[in-house]
């Protein structure tokens, strides 16, 4: 099973029935991510990125095409998936620790309550939230809440992590902090990642593969392999290679938005 992709999105087409008629959001979309890989998806606003995450999570069924995880076709939500959103959605009536432990109340596990708590505490320490376990979500900053939300998405040891613009609402410095936290977490917690983002620098800093989606209905318009593996530091974003990748991606986004012709001006020579 070495070669088979862990996340495999095959010819997926999806249409919403809205009040003003059918709205096609995904058109024959193909994306595959190898085990342990980290795929970033970028694309114009409203093109169908969140819809894609909901399809992969099994929260929606595609009209056509198939989503496969771990060699099994996704027909309904499964507990081997972890999810985090732009809104950290922490439950205000629970402490941070209780929030992080929430998935383990749903997913059947063989672990004891004590082991579960240890795991939650371990993750919170990993993302730098040691000492905040008993605080309420409202007592934390936006960045800290997002860290807690990340812990919650990982606590039940999912093998697929789906992140829908998790850092989108954070300021630039906090965001860069969290990028580095992500690398630290990825080193300790093996998962295969699918990250939706609006930030091209974020995509090449975190992912090993960047998929540019076209405007609605979204197709995979361009796939960029990021030739860097494992943890990296922020300096990498200021190298010549990074600048080149960003130029290509920016140009692809302009094409997707319909602002640039499908030509070659910014494509590397």
């Amino acid at each position, binding site marked *: 099973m070495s070669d088979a992709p862990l996340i495999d999105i095959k010819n997926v087409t999806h249409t919403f029935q809205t009040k003003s008629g059918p709205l096609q959001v995904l058109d024959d979309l193909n994306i595959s991510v190898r085990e342990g890989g980290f795929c970033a998806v970028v694309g114009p606003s409203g093109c169908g990125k969140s819809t894609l995450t*909901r399809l992969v*999570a*099994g*929260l929606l069924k595609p009209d056509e095409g198939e989503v496969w995880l771990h060699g099994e076709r996704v027909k*309904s*939500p*499964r*507990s081997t*998936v972890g*999810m985090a*959103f732009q*809104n950290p*959605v922490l*439950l*205000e*009536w629970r402490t941070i620790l209780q929030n992080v432990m*929430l*998935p383990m*109340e*749903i*997913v059947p596990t063989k672990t004891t309550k004590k082991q579960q708590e240890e795991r939650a505490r371990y993750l919170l320490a990993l993302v730098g939230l040691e000492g905040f376990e008993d605080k*309420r979500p*409202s007592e934390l900053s936006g960045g800290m809440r997002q860290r807690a939300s990340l812990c*919650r998405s990982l606590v*039940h040891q999912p093998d697929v992590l*789906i992140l829908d613009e998790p850092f989108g609402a954070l300021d630039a410095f906090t965001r860069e902090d969290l990028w580095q936290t992500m690398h630290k977490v990825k080193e300790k917690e093996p998962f295969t990642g699918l990250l939706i983002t609006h930030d091209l620098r974020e995509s090449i800093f975190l992912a090993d593969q960047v998929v540019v989606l076209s405007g609605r209905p979204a197709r995979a318009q361009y796939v960029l392999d990021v030739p860097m593996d494992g943890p990296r530091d922020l300096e990498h974003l200021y190298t010549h290679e990074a600048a080149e990748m960003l130029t290509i991606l920016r140009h692809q986004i302009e094409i997707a938005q319909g602002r640039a012709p499908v030509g070659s001006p910014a494509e590397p020579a």
Partner: protein
Amino acid sequence: MFVHKVVVPVAAMVIFLLFWEALVWAMGWPNYKMASPSDLWPAYVKYADLFVINSWQTLWRTVAGLGLAIIFGTLLGMVMGFSRIMREALYPLLVGFNAVPKATVVPIVALMFVGAHDFNTVLIAFMISFFPIAVSVSIGLSTLEPEYRDILAALGASKVTIFWKIALPKTLPEFFGALKVSVTLAFIGTNLMEIVSPHGRGLGALFDSGKTNSDYPLMFAVLIALAALGILLYYVVIALEKALAGWAVRD
């Protein structure tokens, strides 16, 4: 803490009573126009056992009606909160039902179930008070952000689990907001029925007998007793809110 929660309200109450006494004295109002607090005391002493019995009657029927309103209102709110079709179907009906002044319904109910006084009273208390609860629960559930559902749904959690773990606790603050309105309404419902229906039970009936006998201090004494019961019920709700939805209160 003690000063704010106890001393301040009690002081306000005392000042109010003194002001009332002074006003009646200064204006020289006779008893039938406005009784003063010092006239009420004899009324309480004279009818002490009647006050105890009738207060209990009023209290238990109000609480029973309110209890039914909570159960029915919550269920109705759940149905409307989870299903858009049900919401669209039931809303106009509910608004229309609520718009009918309950004072006009009281005689009808009293005639419909002649003799069943407890039942009548509880029914009116219930009918007048379930509306805010149903509306608040349905709004709370229907405005639940999809992400809140998704964090559990993505793990394969059932609708029931999502309701218990997320939707229900998240609507508790709105629910208690509505309950504070409903508790007062239920109280009004009980008293309407007690005054109109000739069964001689409850503080409303005591009020009515005060009226028949032109015992004005008794009528005012009943009003104050009603106010005291209302305050008691209201603070029970506040205490429940603190215990169950204290996390939503920021001070």
